[in-house]
């Protein structure tokens, strides 16, 4: 039986539990919708560069998790599961991130037939050498396409400037060179190591029966001891970046920049939710669109609509970023860091802080409209050891002092690197 839990503040009833094989199942029933979404996540991704099988570590090339995702849709008896799902009118897809690989579909009718296929496809590897060779071409094109994207290039240039060794510094899909070393055996090993039930999480949002979903998962996911895969230890990173400024040129409309700093590492459970909320609140107070700094920079024409900030906590590493189009990246960075120091020392106006917190409250509510967002966050919560549906409790606890401490510790010139793309003349 899945455990039923009510969350009256957000108007949700959630059914969740762990099967004997280790698979986590979460169901958020929704009435009134025509669609349902099922999302099967595996706790592995681009940052996983080593597999441990029979007590031996084998290195895998950058891009292995993503390559495996591309080939998982192939089933020995049915061929391409994506085509089968698509023929049935379901909208199926998958993605690979630094620390999560997920397969999902959205459909109106035939939910349980589609769910059966989803559960089967992750547990039925079918890596044939000739398919792998063909797929390499397709992935190489995908990589070339993203390399054409100036914002992607700027982002990875920043991560390489920030991180000395962490695997998150390389693109999830790898490079055309790195994927040339991936064979059917590499994929087979990767699958054997990471695609184990205890390392997976199934999330369903829609007007569906939680117990039926549980029963199907139990029947279709191979049973076995619920053991988590062994992983590489996290690389120790210095606080400072490797390089403070990296620049490149591209055919772009206007020069742009992305600055960032490494923040806390190895966050787990509730602590990671609290830290994430603190980071977002701190960045919002400092440079959100309602901040005095934003207005000042906007009025001076130093930033425009494209300016924004972000916080990412992936694969045991976390960092903040901010950037957008500007004619003077150094000046914008300087002003942001000056204001961060000023806020940290003089404190944040209580009314302003309360409004920013209300805004965060509202975004937590809004996020529950999105089936995709619920699926992603509930799965990430089950991997990281926190209850996503209880985020508001964590938000209540974040104080102005936490936010100031975040700004004081992480938003300093010593920690901040900047990646700039200048406009190349045609």
């Amino acid at each position: 039986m899945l455990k039923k839990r009510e969350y009256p503040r957000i108007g949700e009833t959630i059914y969740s539990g762990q099967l004997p094989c280790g698979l986590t199942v979460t169901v958020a029933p929704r009435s009134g919708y025509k669609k349902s979404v099922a999302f099967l996540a595996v706790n592995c991704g681009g940052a996983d560069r080593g597999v441990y099988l029979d007590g031996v570590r084998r290195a895998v090339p950058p891009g292995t998790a993503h390559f495996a995702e591309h080939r998982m849709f192939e089933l020995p008896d049915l061929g391409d599961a994506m085509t089968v799902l698509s023929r049935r009118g379901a909208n199926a897809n998958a993605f690979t991130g630094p620390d999560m690989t997920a397969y999902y579909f959205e459909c109106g009718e035939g939910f349980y037939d589609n769910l059966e296929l989803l559960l089967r496809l992750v547990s039925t590897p079918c890596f044939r050498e000739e398919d792998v060779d063909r797929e390499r071409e397709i992935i190489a094109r995908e990589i070339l396409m993203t390399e054409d994207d100036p914002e992607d290039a700027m982002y990875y240039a920043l991560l390489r400037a920030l991180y000395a060794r962490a695997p998150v510094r390389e693109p999830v899909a790898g490079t055309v060179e790195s994927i040339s070393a991936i064979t059917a055996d590499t994929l087979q090993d990767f699958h054997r190591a990471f695609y184990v039930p205890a390392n997976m999480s199934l999330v369903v949002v829609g007007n569906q029966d939680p117990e039926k979903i549980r029963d199907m998962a139990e029947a279709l996911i191979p049973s076995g001891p619920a053991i988590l895969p062994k992983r590489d230890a996290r690389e120790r990173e210095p606080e400072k970046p490797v390089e403070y400024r990296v620049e490149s040129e591209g055919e772009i409309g206007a020069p742009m920049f992305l600055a960032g700093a490494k923040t806390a590492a190895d966050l787990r459970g509730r602590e990671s939710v609290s830290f994430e909320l603190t980071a977002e609140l701190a960045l919002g107070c400092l440079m959100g669109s309602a901040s005095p700094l934003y207005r000042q920079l906007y009025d001076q024409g130093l930033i425009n609509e494209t300016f924004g900030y972000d916080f990412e906590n992936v694969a045991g590493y976390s960092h903040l970023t901010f950037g957008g189009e500007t004619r003077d990246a150094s000046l914008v960075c300087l002003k942001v860091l000056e204001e961060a120091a000023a806020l940290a020392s003089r404190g944040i106006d209580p009314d302003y802080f309360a409004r920013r917190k209300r805004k965060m409250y509202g975004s937590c509510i809004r996020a529950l409209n999105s089936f995709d967002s619920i699926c992603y966050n509930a799965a990430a919560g089950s991997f990281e050891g926190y209850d996503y549906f209880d985020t508001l409790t964590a938000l209540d606890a974040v104080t102005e002092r936490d936010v100031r401490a975040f700004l004081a510790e992480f938003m300093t010139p010593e920690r901040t690197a900047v990646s700039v793309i200048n406009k190349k003349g045609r």
Partner: protein
Amino acid sequence: MDKVTERELMRGVRLTCVRAERFKTGYLSMTLLAPHTKKTASLNAVLPYVLRRGTARLPDMESIAARLDGLYGARIDPAIRKKGEVAAMGFCADFPDGAFLPGRPDILSPVAYLMGELLLSPATRGGRLRADFVESERRNLIDDINAEINDRRAYAGQRLVELMFRGESYGVSKLGTIADTGRVTVQILTRYYKELLSTAPMEVFYCGAEDPDRVERVVREALSALPRSGEHTLPSTVFGSTKPVGPVRTVREVMDVTQGRLCMGFRLEPPPEGLELPAMLVFNTLFGGCATSRLYLNVREKLALCYYVSSGIDRFKGALFVFAGIDFPSFDRVRDEITGELEAIARGEMEPWELESARRAVVSSIYSAMDEQAGLEELYLDRAILGLRPEPGELAALCADVTAEEVARVAQSAHLSHIYFLTAEGDDAEET
């Protein structure tokens, strides 16, 4: 089923209310409809951003943002959409439903009033929009137009539309051109803004848990200062081109890219009355609009000729577009394969399962849009502009009944007009 009510609130102002309790948020939009022309595109694009800079009561972005933060992060965003030759311009808002907030506050009213204020009572100096706001938003718009090149795929698509509809309003991007944006002045924009307010029809859309009568009262109040004196004729959009279809033109442009972007543009003949939209949607999905489409399965998967390939249809203009990411040398081959697939469909060569998958995919995409507030808003806006009768749910039912003959007929009516190729090889060239 959602309860939908449609009312005329005042001259030229229509309110569509979709009462639905499944969402955690409320959604409200106010959209003015005006002709999209070369002359007005930049004005339409810059106006909501200028209005968003400050109102008579809240004189800067900081105070507007503070107000929105206080409303639990309600968002009111400027929106400019191009629907054929109609510009749909205004604001879209979404905000947490009071039922999930401490003390169950009313968020709809303050959001509607603030949106009304943004539209009707901007910050002014001497009766004109503020010169500093106009100047900086004009510069921002020029930056946005320049930045279109950053997204290679969208840029290539926009270049194709420009070439294919050269000299026609539809060929102009929804952001307008840099030259026209450069000519926007405070005087011109203020005059245009006042004219729009008194003459442009307005579509108001709400979706959420509130009772439609209450929504009506709130919106009436929010728009009480709207001057409604002139005529409010719905701007029209013409299906098809005003120019005859000439020989196919191919344009190559060179840029520092690692992958070629091929775009093909076809003009569609106006289809028989009543059948147009469902048949067009199913045809497009079968041709290149889903993962079981001809282009995806044959050109991408089987022949492995492209990283991505898809087709899209402009239901307002009657144009069909194909977009593909390819290796530079594959240009001729991919072009021929794409036209080959289109010809096969025109000959009626389609498997029953292909047709069935396409019908299902169209139906589920309409249903999927109906499960989102922004999706519903767009469906109802499109319907208002096209003057269509079917409700989105009925449209889905019609799509489920489209026959192979109807799909073939759409394919027969497609005439290749322009090909655009963004490549790293050779020189810029145009050939017939």
